């Protein structure tokens, strides 16, 4: 008994340690992944939201914002006919988001929020199949938050400039190759 009591804290410490150094990542469709890139930063001075909103009166009417957050309001295209700020943001606690059942979640757990509507994508994301893939195929995988890649107010990707097309076969000729005129890779050097 005495020995056990003495060993108790040690065992507790071991347990804590093993939890910490144990598998940091759980993958599969059901478990939540654990290895994340840092959540995307907010613009300077915008967070915590409560700095400004604490003393403001809450206006629950859906409307176009004309004084602040004009850009967001203007570009807002996330099912804009049905959605607006308070579907995700919380009127009473501006520093948290809320799920449809009222539970509050921090901005860093945004995937729980998005997953409410985008269930199939959420499932794919948890399995490591939706989204940009980095890390190790047989080990730790890096997960990105939904907002790491998507603008939550306008989630569809913008068009981007493509890299140059390949050369036509007749453009590949036996010309003189000068060392410093060898074409550069448009993506630059390897890191």
């Amino acid at each position, binding site marked *: 008994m005495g020995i056990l009591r003495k060993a108790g804290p040690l065992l507790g410490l071991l347990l804590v340690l093993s939890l910490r150094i144990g598998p940091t990542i759980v993958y599969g469709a059901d478990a939540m992944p654990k290895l994340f890139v840092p959540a995307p930063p907010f613009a300077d001075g915008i967070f915590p939201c409560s700095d400004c909103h604490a003393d403001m009166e809450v206006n629950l009417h859906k409307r176009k914002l004309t004084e602040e957050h004009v850009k967001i309001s203007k570009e807002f295209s996330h099912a804009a006919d049905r959605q607006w700020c308070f579907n995700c943001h919380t009127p009473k606690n501006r520093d948290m988001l809320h799920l449809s059942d009222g539970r509050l979640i921090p901005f860093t757990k945004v995937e729980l929020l998005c997953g409410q509507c985008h269930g199939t994508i959420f499932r794919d994301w948890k399995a490591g199949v939706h989204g940009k893939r980095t890390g190790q195929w047989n080990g730790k995988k890096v997960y990105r938050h939904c907002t790491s890649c998507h603008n939550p107010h306008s989630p569809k990707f913008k068009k981007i400039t493509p890299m140059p097309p390949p050369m036509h*076969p007749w453009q590949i000729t*036996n010309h003189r190759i000068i060392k410093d005129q060898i074409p550069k890779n448009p993506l630059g050097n390897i890191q």
Partner: protein
Amino acid sequence: MSQFIKNSVACLSPVTKGNKYYYLWVGFLGILICFGAFYYIQQLRYGLIVTNMRDQVSWGLYISNFTFLVGVAAAAVLLVVPAYIYHFKPIHEIVLFGELMAVVAVTMCLMFVSIDMGRLDRAWHILPFIGMMHFPASMLAWDVVVLNGYLAINVIVTFYALYMMAHHKEFSFKPIYPIIILSIPWAIGIHTVTAFLYNGLPSRPFWNASILAPRFIAGALCSGPALMIIVFQIVRKVSDIKITNRALFKIAQLVAYAVGIDMFLEGCEIFKEFYSNSIHLAPMKYVYLGLDGNYNLVPWTWAAIIAIAIAFIIFLQKRTRENILLLNIGCVLIFFGVYIEKGMGCVVPGFIPGTLGEIYQYSPSFTEKAISAGVFAFGALFYTFLLKIAIPIYTGKLRFYKDEDADKVTA
């Protein structure tokens, strides 16, 4: 040993002798060979970039020539069968020259394949035991086996015949008869294997037709003999060798059948592709009609078809094919037609459109043409020299025995 060297020198000496036309001919070929060699050195220096082949069309004029020449080589069988199986005398008298042509054609085939290789220095990798020949899986490995085998067979047969002729008053083909018989299926074999080389690639619907091997053989039995008819006429003109018209007409008659079969098979293929009208029709369209404004093979294809059709009409009737002028016109037309059809017309459309649908209209670069011309010139020179050696032995001018002590080899 010294006797052997002496005899060899005696054999080779006629090569250096001849009239001014002979020297002109040799000189002309020599220039072409040097020309080709010069461009081949360029190719060795820079790589196959000097050709117009690219990833989209990765085989071109070289492999087309190779394919065509396999046919010419295989055509010797058209002389071997009537000569040795049916003992048709007029053909038996010239079969040796057909076999020598096979030797030359196979040599040229091997040259074209070598020229087409990116790394000739590693050619030994394809050898069995020494390298890692991928036999029997790779059809190219098969081709190496059958082509070299065919070369060996024809070298043995012709060397045996010439050696015995030079050393004995009478001799028998009996000791090498099995090899002669073997050469018949083997000749069919080289062209079948070459056809299978293409045929076995499901990625290329144009080639992936089981009619390809028969078409190759039919084409071969047109072009090779057509060439022989012309060459034999030249030979009998410039040497005192006797080649009867009867032999030529017999060959012409066999060619007529072959042309007919060739046209029929081509028609079958055209019907199958155009009537079924699947997405695999594209290369056929490219060859016969042009595909999306790309039609650089179309005039050649139709020229070949018309040439072969005219030749067929000439060869079909005894009256016209036994007219020497018409016969020669027919032979030239056949040679030209089959060269297009079984050369570039067979190889290039396999790549157009490419496996990802891209159309790159390949036409050979000057370097490719120059090198190919060099190889053809080499072949012509090689054949000329072989005839220069063979004809004196054949006509009895060169003998290594005196008549009185001639030893007879009993049959």
